[in-house]
């Protein structure tokens, strides 16, 4: 009897520390932020909880431009990352042979350099007298006084770069799992390469596409570092607004409301994706005992 009790309570004992920590420092803070978003006042007079729901409509009205821009930039960066990442993941999964692990290591190598410094180095690469700008000017794509830094191009390029490995790794994982016999069967049935790709490889790699786009899109839409370092206020995204409302202006209610709006939009996107992909692929819980 006693051992039976121990057996049923053991998982909860194991869960308690980790789950407790997340409840206390992830879930509870969201409650505090929810309350914060419904307050009125200023940093000098203090904030009172007045259940001011209009904070949300006000915030959305004042910063709709940044919201739209965030999702535009993030969507664009995700699409470009997919176009860059898919062929690379494909080559690593099917062509690399014994170089596979080495190439995978190269893909995650950017993570070993501090995020901010990676972004700063794009400032060097895209700077006004740098090679890229000079080359583009000499072939006439960019005008004589044209620049890349402080434009939409540099911000989107930076975002794409910083989250590209998040795209490649799940793509690789799903491509690598494809049974080569499936492809052979396709060829045996006289499928041309592009038929086999379209009807076998691509559908089988969809879980990777879904996971990769999600892992890229979510952090990209909340990013503010790229817009800050590689852009101007004209490129500022919703993350920039939340950051400055919180840490510079100390307008906590607006910042909190904006955070929740951002999270709500994200959640909607995740749920839509989850419906398409199935929760199992999304949570990575495939293969667990039911």
């Amino acid at each position, binding site marked *: 009897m006693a051992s039976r009790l121990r057996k049923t309570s*053991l*998982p*909860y004992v*194991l*869960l308690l*520390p*980790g*789950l407790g*920590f*997340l409840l206390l*420092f992830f879930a509870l803070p969201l409650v*505090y*932020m929810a309350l914060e978003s419904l307050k009125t006042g200023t940093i000098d007079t203090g904030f009172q909880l007045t259940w001011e729901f209009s904070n949300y409509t006000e915030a959305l009205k004042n910063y709709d431009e940044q919201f739209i821009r965030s999702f535009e930039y993030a969507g664009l960066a995700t699409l470009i990352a997919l176009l*860059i990442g898919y*062929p690379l993941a*494909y080559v690593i999964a099917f062509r690399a042979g014994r170089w596979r*692990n080495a190439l995978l*290591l*190269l*893909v995650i*190598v*950017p*993570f*070993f*350099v*501090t*995020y*901010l*410094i*990676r972004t*700063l*180095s794009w*400032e*060097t*690469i895209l*700077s006004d007298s740098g090679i890229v700008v000079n080359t583009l000017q000499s072939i006439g794509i960019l005008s004589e006084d044209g620049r890349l830094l402080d434009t939409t191009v540099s911000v989107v390029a930076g975002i794409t*770069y910083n989250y*590209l490995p998040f795209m490649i790794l799940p793509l690789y994982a799903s491509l690598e799992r494809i049974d080569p016999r499936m492809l052979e069967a396709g060829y045996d049935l006289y499928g041309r390469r592009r038929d086999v790709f379209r009807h076998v490889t691509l559908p089988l790699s969809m879980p990777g596409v879904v996971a990769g786009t*999600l892992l890229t899109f*979510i*952090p990209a839409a*909340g990013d*503010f*570092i790229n817009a800050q*370092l590689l852009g101007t206020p004209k490129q500022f995204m919703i*993350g920039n607004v939340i*950051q400055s409302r*919180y*840490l510079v202006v100390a307008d*906590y209610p607006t910042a*909190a409301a904006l*955070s929740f709006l*951002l*999270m709500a939009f*994200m*959640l909607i996107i995740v749920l839509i994706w989850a419906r398409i992909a199935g*929760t199992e692929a999304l*949570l*990575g819980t495939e*293969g667990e005992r039911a």
Partner: protein
Amino acid sequence: MTLRRRGLDWLLNAYAGLALIYLLLPIGVILAFSFNNPVGRFNFIWNEFSLDAWKHPFAVEGIGSALEKSLQIAALSTIFATILGTLTALALVRYEFKGRSPVNFFIFIPLATPEVVLGAALLSQFLNWGTPQLGFATILIAHIMFNLSFVVITVRSRLIGFDRSLEEAAQDLGATPWETFRLVTLPLIMPGVVSAALLAFALSIDDFVITNFNSGSTITFPLFVWGAARVAIPPQIYVIASMIFLFTVAMMILTVWQQRRAERMAAVRPDEPTAPDEPTPAVAEPATA
């Protein structure tokens, strides 16, 4: 046909090569510019080769203490997050219990939450509580929080392919549950735990956004870089970034190499055929006696 196919192959490989160059270019720039002797305050334009910054990496006011803070926080948050996360992963994979799938989902949410939101929410709580004072402790809490889910997911993926009969064998041979865990389970899941710890360390030492919200006046290395980015970027920043980079790559290669060796050893043992003309290993003797 074959010519066209070969052309297509070549094009695909070239495209993948370009993608790799895009990934690696900024790192090359950072390594190269750590040897620059820049004109002016910003290290953006190549001037001349110099070893000065590498000889005196901590010559910039505040950079040494910032790096020290980052290392302390990374080490501590890695230890806490790895222990808590491994226990959570064990519970989630090994046991059937009420509420497992909601917990699975709950663990996943922090990963799907933008960093600004994580940082801002935690700050709201600390401001309301008034304690602990924003600084080292709050940064540490924040780092354990965002590392936890990553550890759970990494260890969990390792646990899923785990052969439970080994544990049953240990218990049949009279091992207590704790002995079974220490002598069988832990060594087997160790590679997963080590990768999780490495990941946690790398994420912690790199984090800017969440730290920025909860740092008070404590300055970590990324916060130092952020402050510097507006005023002056000395080559020392690139030197320290290069050091962190080289250290992490070395750790990564070492772990991969060790895991591979361990796996090779593990793969040899179970069904290693004993050649008939070789003496039977001593362990097998009692059974026949």
